[in-house]
């Protein structure tokens, strides 16, 4: 059993604190993705779990055991590094079997484990090559194979796909997901790519500046972002945010445009708020999903279009702010065209303008 618990974990570099007392509970077999912008402390957190970075405060538990003072080799983990970190002087076979060799397993055992891993990752024809003679994707697979061979309780991945091209990345993403289903081990996976996070995770952990902002399933964080940071970080294109004020129980924007308060959100009269709507929920009339229960309409002028085939992204301006909208069954739209858009209020969000926190009831 390998749950992982972080209890008030702090990381300081000298006087500089880069991870601030974070708490996280990861269940056995769970696939958790740490995501956040560059420099937010994802790698640092992962490396503290791995034992490659000393813990300045709090506890890290793996499988119910506090591991703060254990070296990596005693934590029963494997790690896949961003730059693969293969041993350049060893063949693929030796790379894969190295940890078992160190653990003094018999040669027969090592061969068996190596062949098995090579089989899973289609590395068999490459076993006698050195890493220098492999492509990026192949090296990546060797790095994963090396992690698998150890048969650890917890896998740690630090942006393993970031050096691959887009196509290979999509392919490897599927491979990793399959691997998780097959092995059923606990995985902590770091990325700054929210699409990777959404597609892979059982639960996503969104970090910013050394804090955890929100933890939840991909749908939870997508549908109920806890603040404007999460709202704009998760989802592509990012959620449109518009600043306004609550007036007469309605939201009034700078140019006087008014919208009803989305259902399920509380407001105080006169409060400065931020209204959030995703492109999927603001569509031109006639090119939208069927009308829902709570709808509103606004007129906007289209500035720019991005045809994607099945849909077109429209860039328009609402109350002085650029807004991205989506057009289904697209027709050609010319620049400066004025269109009426319908907004699905049930799917819209309200945040406090000052703190950025959600106003959900």
């Amino acid at each position: 059993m390998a749950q992982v618990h972080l209890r008030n974990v702090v990381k300081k570099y000298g006087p500089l604190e880069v991870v601030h007392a974070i708490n996280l509970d990861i269940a056995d077999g769970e696939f958790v993705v740490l995501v956040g912008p560059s420099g937010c402390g994802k790698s640092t957190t992962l490396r503290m779990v791995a034992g490659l970075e000393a813990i300045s405060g709090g506890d890290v538990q793996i499988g119910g055991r506090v591991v703060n003072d254990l070296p990596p080799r005693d934590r029963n983990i494997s790690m896949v590094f961003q730059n693969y970190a293969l041993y350049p002087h060893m063949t693929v076979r030796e790379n894969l079997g190295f940890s078992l060799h160190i653990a003094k397993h018999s040669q027969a055992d090592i061969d068996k484990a190596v062949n098995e891993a090579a089989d899973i990752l289609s590395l068999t024809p490459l076993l006698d090559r050195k890493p220098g003679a492999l492509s990026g994707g192949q090296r990546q697979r060797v790095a994963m194979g090396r992690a698998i061979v150890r048969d650890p309780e917890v896998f740690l991945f630090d942006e393993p796909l970031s050096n691959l091209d887009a196509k290979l990345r999509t392919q490897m993403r599927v491979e990793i997901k399959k691997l998780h289903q097959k092995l059923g081990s606990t995985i902590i996976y770091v990325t700054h790519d929210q699409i990777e996070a959404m597609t892979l995770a059982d639960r996503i952990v969104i970090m910013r500046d050394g804090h955890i902002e929100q933890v939840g399933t991909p749908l939870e964080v997508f549908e109920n972002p806890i603040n404007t940071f999460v709202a704009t970080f998760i989802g592509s294109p990012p959620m449109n945010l518009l600043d306004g004020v609550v007036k007469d129980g309605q939201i009034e924007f700078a140019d006087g445009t008014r919208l009803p308060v989305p259902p399920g959100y509380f407001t105080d009269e006169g409060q400065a708020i931020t209204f959030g709507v995703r492109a999927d929920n603001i569509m031109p009339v006639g090119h939208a999903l069927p009308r829902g229960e709570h709808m509103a309409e606004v007129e906007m002028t289209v500035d720019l279009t991005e045809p994607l085939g099945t849909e077109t992204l429209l860039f328009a301006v609402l109350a002085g702010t650029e807004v991205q909208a989506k057009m289904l069954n697209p027709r050609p739209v010319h620049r400066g065209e004025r269109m009426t858009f319908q907004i699905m209020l049930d799917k819209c969000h309200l945040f406090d303008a000052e703190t950025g926190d959600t106003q959900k009831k």
Partner: protein
Amino acid sequence: MKRLKLPQWLVLLLPAIIILSAVVLIPLVLSLYSSFTSYRLTRPDSIFNWVGLFNYEKAITDAKFWAAFGRTVLLLTVALNLEMLLGLGIAIMVSKVTRGQRLLRTMMMFPMMFSPILVGFQFKFIFNDNVGLVNNALQSLGITDTAIPWLVDGNLAMFSIIFAEVWTSTSVFGILILAGLYAIPRDPLEAAKVDGCTALQSFRYVTLPFLMPFIYIAMAIRSLDVARAYDIVQIMTNGGPARRTELLWTLIGRTGYVDARMGYANAMGYISIFLAIFFTVYFFKKLTKSRQELGMGM
């Protein structure tokens, strides 16, 4: 009269050709030629006295020559290995130091800043049996009350020479290995930690393979150095006592300039050069191989 017309490329290369001939080619040819003569510095016309392979035969059957040859190989082997081990140790310690590392690095270079002649004089004094530092220290500490003949006893003299050699040149290894340590990527070392390596195993399986090219470069440089060793030995013992510390080049120098038998000295020199060439080729082969191991190509 028609002017002699040289091709343009030859004209352009002529200065280089002239300089190279003057400083390399002519001395080389001359010394090679003289090794087939009974050339003596005291009788210049003897340079025309062709003796064929006589000098070479004489060298090959000369026990003194082979003793010097063997001693040079011994010095090379012992000094290089000692310097490598010590240099490795120093480099690792310096790389672990967090404060004042620059200062330490500079201090590491100090022994290299002195002329070998001075180092020779220094150690000649240090190991002197009457006024030397070592004996005085040993006597003051009461470890011994006799004057140990450091430079007079054959074995001790060889030891003293190796000591001086190691003192001067360990830093060559230290600096190069330190450069190697800095060049090691961090990732494979961390991967090794995760893969279960202890510090010692990480060193053995990851650090050392990365250092090998640097060690071989140092070996190649130093093997050339030691194979032509002359100055320190000349100063400290002058090849003595009773030729017990005679190396190839002290022997050759003595034969050529003291005994004035230049033809014979040149013949020995040409044989000796093979020693240097052998070690250099050997270490460069090793270097190439260790780089290939690391996937660095040539």
